[in-house]
């Protein structure tokens, strides 16, 4: 059945204009940061936290005097978590709102749909979502993890600590889902494990019945899933739990916030992330404090998708300052060189437009919190865009 | 006072008027027939009287009340029972359900009087749980009449009960109508082509042609088969 969402077609577009808290003099023209994000559809679970992170960064920067004396203005647009919506959102941001930069966490479908528009409009684009890797464009930088950084901790842990030899893979049928699981299958084979099956459902499919039955009858030792964020992830987890699946379960697409929303159903899931709230660093503690202070009760739990967004805004600020201008080409050239000490540690996108990251393996607890199992320092993203 | 009277009623379908000013009266306890060839507007008259076809002009009064603008179900609840032409029953409902469908007719008598109709049509009692559609044509006709009468309405509109029914049963129906009007003083307006039935049952008749009443036939006229035949056949 098709489950294309009305919202995708309409490309419902929300514009939230966030001006600096300081409300200082608006002498110079503002710098517009476009944030196309999935406020509806699959990503809607996590999108609000992403917007909050960007809002905090903008507020902090504006309070401190802005960038080159100019205030930052955020322009948020709903991409409907899909290609069609993304097209409208990117069109509107690039050509109508004429933003200076795009910084966003999006589905792979939306990113792919947006890239031609970015190329046409020649706007820098910092992508802040973990993804399947190898997305390359002269205008694109990525500050979140790729499979090379994320998959190994989970598979290694399952094979050593849980003694798993056979795996079953389930995903959403789109670039991220397939990309992640193909990498995972290769990695498992490389480590001497066996993949008993891999199954996909369209990105917004919700009926996993047949796939779960296949999983159960396969007798696999462990399960690794990679769905579109949000709704598919939630429905899959719910239905897995309802079906009584209790083998080790690694979820490549769940973040801490979503896990919290899912309640007891998420308990026991293994996640591998570049950010968890428990990171003891000063930067993280300060970030969490400021988020709480800024958003109070409305605070959405910061997570592996929202924190890179926060850092992305700062990376852009540093690049503009280094370039001394918001000119697209100059900013693109400068982005390689700047580094930001954020909640996740030092972030610099200097490995073929991608960033080496510290990764954490953790398990979701029954109360929605997570338990850190181990961490891996400065994992390299590998060969992502050798031609750039 | 007449139980039913119409004054110059006009009704029809789409752009065509089928009834072109029909005025008739039915007295309490009277059995009145409407005769005429096929297509002169007899069935249209019945549908207009019960309210399934809107009145375009004219007036219908029932028991002295103007019911011209009322819906069919309102008229039925006032006590006008309607037994349509042909197999006017619900074929997929059981006999009992078909009979129960009559219990909204006549608000004055909300409890269906099963004994009354079983008295006249004993076969119904034996076939209560049988589907209406499995009855024979004649039995279906009797079921339709029984249903119309189960709450003892003041007026029965009966559209060609003889259509597709064996002569012996037609006679039975005739006798029953006569008894009904005598013992329960229920009035009957009967649309018929069957000469036999008219002769046994009707007190008098209206002859219709081309949407108008062309003449009134007295009880005497009804006995004359030749007069009757001119109105029915050619």
């Amino acid at each position: 059945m098709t489950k294309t969402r009305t919202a995708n077609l309409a490309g419902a577009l929300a514009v939230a204009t966030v001006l600096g808290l300081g409300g200082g003099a608006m002498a110079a023209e503002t710098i517009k940061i476009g944030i196309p994000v999935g406020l509806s559809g699959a990503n809607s679970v996590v999108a609000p936290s992403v917007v909050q992170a960007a809002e905090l960064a903008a507020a902090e920067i504006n309070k401190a005097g802005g960038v080159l004396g100019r205030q930052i203005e955020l322009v948020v647009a709903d991409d409907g978590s899909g290609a069609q919506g993304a097209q409208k959102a990117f069109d509107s941001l690039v050509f109508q709102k004429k933003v200076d930069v795009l910084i966003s966490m999006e589905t792979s479908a939306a990113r792919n749909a947006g890239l031609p528009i970015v190329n046409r409009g020649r706007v820098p684009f910092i992508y802040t979502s973990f993804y399947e890797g190898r997305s390359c464009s002269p205008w694109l930088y990525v500050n979140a993890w790729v499979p090379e950084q994320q998959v190994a901790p989970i598979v290694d842990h399952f094979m050593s600590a849980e003694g798993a030899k056979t795996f079953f893979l389930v995903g959403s049928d789109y670039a991220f889902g397939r990309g992640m699981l193909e990498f995972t299958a290769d990695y498992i084979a490389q480590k001497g494990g066996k993949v008993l099956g891999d199954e996909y459902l369209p990105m917004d499919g919700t009926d996993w019945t047949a796939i779960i039955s296949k999983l159960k009858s396969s007798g696999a030792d462990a399960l690794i899933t990679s769905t579109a964020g949000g709704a598919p992830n939630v429905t899959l987890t719910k239905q897995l739990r309802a079906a009584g699946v209790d083998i080790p379960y690694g979820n490549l697409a769940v973040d801490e916030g979503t896990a919290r929303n899912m309640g007891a159903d998420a308990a026991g899931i293994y996640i591998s992330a570049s950010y968890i709230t428990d990171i003891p660093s000063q930067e993280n503690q300060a970030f969490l404090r400021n988020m709480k202070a800024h958003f109070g009760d409305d605070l959405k739990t910061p997570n592996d998708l929202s924190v890179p967004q926060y850092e992305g805004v700062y990376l852009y600020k540093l690049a503009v300052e280094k370039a001394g201008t918001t000119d697209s080409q100059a900013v693109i050239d400068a982005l390689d060189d700047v580094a930001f000490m954020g909640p996740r540690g030092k972030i610099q996108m200097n490995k073929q437009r991608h960033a080496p990251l510290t990764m954490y393996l953790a398990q979701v607890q029954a109360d929605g919190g997570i338990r850190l199992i181990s961490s891996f320092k400065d994992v390299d993203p590998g060969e992502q865009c050798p031609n750039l | 006072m007449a139980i039913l009277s119409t004054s110059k009623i006009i009704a029809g379908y789409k752009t065509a008027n089928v009834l072109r000013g029909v005025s008739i009266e039915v007295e309490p306890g009277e059995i009145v027939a409407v005769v005429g060839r096929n297509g002169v507007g007899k069935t249209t008259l019945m549908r207009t009287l019960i309210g399934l076809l809107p009145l375009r002009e004219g007036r219908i009064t029932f028991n002295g009340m103007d019911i011209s603008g009322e819906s069919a179900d309102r008229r039925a609840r006032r006590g006008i029972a309607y037994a349509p032409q042909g197999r006017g029953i619900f074929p997929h409902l059981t006999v009992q359900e078909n009979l129960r469908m009559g219990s909204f007719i006549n608000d004055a008598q909300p409890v269906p009087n099963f004994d009354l109709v079983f008295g006249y049509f004993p076969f119904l009692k034996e076939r209560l749980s049988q589907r209406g559609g499995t009855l024979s044509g004649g039995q279906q006709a009797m079921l339709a009449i029984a249903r119309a009468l189960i709450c003892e309405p003041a007026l029965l509109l009966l559209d060609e009960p003889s259509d597709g029914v064996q002569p012996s049963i037609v006679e039975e129906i005739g006798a029953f109508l006569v008894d009904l009007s005598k013992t329960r003083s229920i009035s009957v307006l009967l649309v018929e082509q069957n000469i036999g039935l008219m002769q046994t049952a009707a007190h008098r008749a209206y002859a219709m042609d081309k949407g108008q009443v062309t003449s009134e036939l007295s009880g005497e006229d009804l006995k004359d088969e030749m007069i009757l035949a001119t109105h029915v056949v050619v």
Partner: protein
Amino acid sequence: MVEQAQNGPAKGQPSAARQRSDLGTVLKVSAAALVVLGVAPFFLDIYTVNILIRALLLAALALTVDLLWGYTGILTFGQSAFFGIGAYACALVFTHWGFGAGWAILALALGVLAAMAVAGLAGWLAFYHGASPLYGSIVTLALPIVVTQVVFAGGRTTGSSSGLSGFPTYYWTIETWFWIAGAFLVVVTALAWLFVRSDMGRVLVAIRENETRCAYLGIPVSRIKILLFVAAGAIGAVAGFGYAAFTNVVAPELTGFLLGTELLIWVALGGRGTLIGPVIGAIFIDVTSSYLSGSLPFYWKLLVGILFVVVIVALPQGLMPEVTKLWRRLVPGAKRAAETPALERAPVREVRRGVEKPLAVSGVHRHFGSLQVLQGIDFVANEGELLSLVGPNGAGKTTLIRCLADGYERSGGDITVFGRELGRWPPDRCVALGIGRKFQTANVFATLTVAECLRVSRYRLEPPSLWTSDTALELPEAALRIVEETGLAQSLDTEARHLAHGQKQALELAMVLALEPRIVLLDEPTAGLTRIERERIGAILTSLTERERLSILLVEHDLDFVREISSRVIVLHQGQIVLDGSVEEVVGSALVREIYAGTAMDGKGNEP
């Protein structure tokens, strides 16, 4: 015996001189539209031009929905499927095979051919003889769902849920794309305009108004619907191709059911069956959505939803007719003077006479389940005979007529028409044998004018032009007489729905006679007519049998009328022929009297 053709060629192809066409006006308007589109990019900002390009392509798609739904009455949810096929053809070829002018032409050709093939298949499934309009809609509903799932199932090849993007394409300037999209829309609209205003366009409306009547006028309804569906699919595929080439992104939503319903909304709001309304509706709503969804995200969609419901409930014809009405009120004289076609006598066709019996019926029976409606009907109809079928209600008269005019109707038995077996044929093929049928209730095309109704009836004999309309209306003698004698000749420009009841009956009879049938089946042609009208029709029928040697079968209740005009009478009772004889024999028969009086029994009874 062979009658000579009196004048003109036997097969009357209308001469070119008689063709009227809107071509001049259309060219002028198109040129004006092209000029506006040509300068528009210089006055609009880049964002507006950008979203207009998409809107223009979608408007062309909406136009095909209007052709199908507004004009022909096929409620389609599926046009998005063809749009998607065109778009994916572009993306797949450019992504996987190659890019360049040759590849582009190949991709376009593949997309159009695939769309046409899918449309042909779906049309064959949806528009069979006897299909309900709902079934057609069901198939068009399934279509985008199937195409979308195929895209999903394509994995890496089709990009599945994420679609394909970033494939090489022509990075022309945005103005260039705007001009391409604009020119495409203008051309498609112009062609569609000529098409719907042509004689063939009238046939489409006739199908929408009354498909059954069309079939019995010998119009191959199924074939026309399928061909139209295929053509609409091809246009949709071209639009989709352009969309993909411009946006450089294809996604499953492009082929989806939701886009299909959105097209319906645009068409309904703009005004179905107005061509321009849907185009304006599509452009206006799509562009406004892109703009307003920024500041009024949900309220705008809510507003469109409410407007849509209100229009469907209260103004089913959409907003365009209201605008036109207002325009006519404000600008007196804006109403175009309709051109009344000149009535002409059609050349008499050569027919062989007296060689074969017009109609031979043997052993025909018909049952519905266990109910026998006709059993063992045998009779022969002769040339120049007016044969009346009489009998009480339910005797099977209308059923018999149906069996003669539609090869699918009878349960068994043989019917021969001029020596040729009537097979299991749909009504339009029965018409080709020379059978014309008039229905019981007047069955005309409500929104067509009298002249158009008659012209549509000439479909089989004078194949209508796709682009022009004939300024003359050729009718055979018999039809001409009815038109002239009943006053229809003075109302050629009146829409059929505004005619009086009697005139409608006369019009339908004229339409049937316009088919130049050799056998005419009439089901109560005088029901609801005044005495004068009846007499007039009676006289015409008698002369048809006497002068033109037609064979007429008449179902009639009015025995006076039967007695006046019949040459022979068949009495049906309980599905059987009980009497077949002259008028005197039948009218005087005691049996007939008994049958009508309800006292006759045939012994077998009708008690099941």
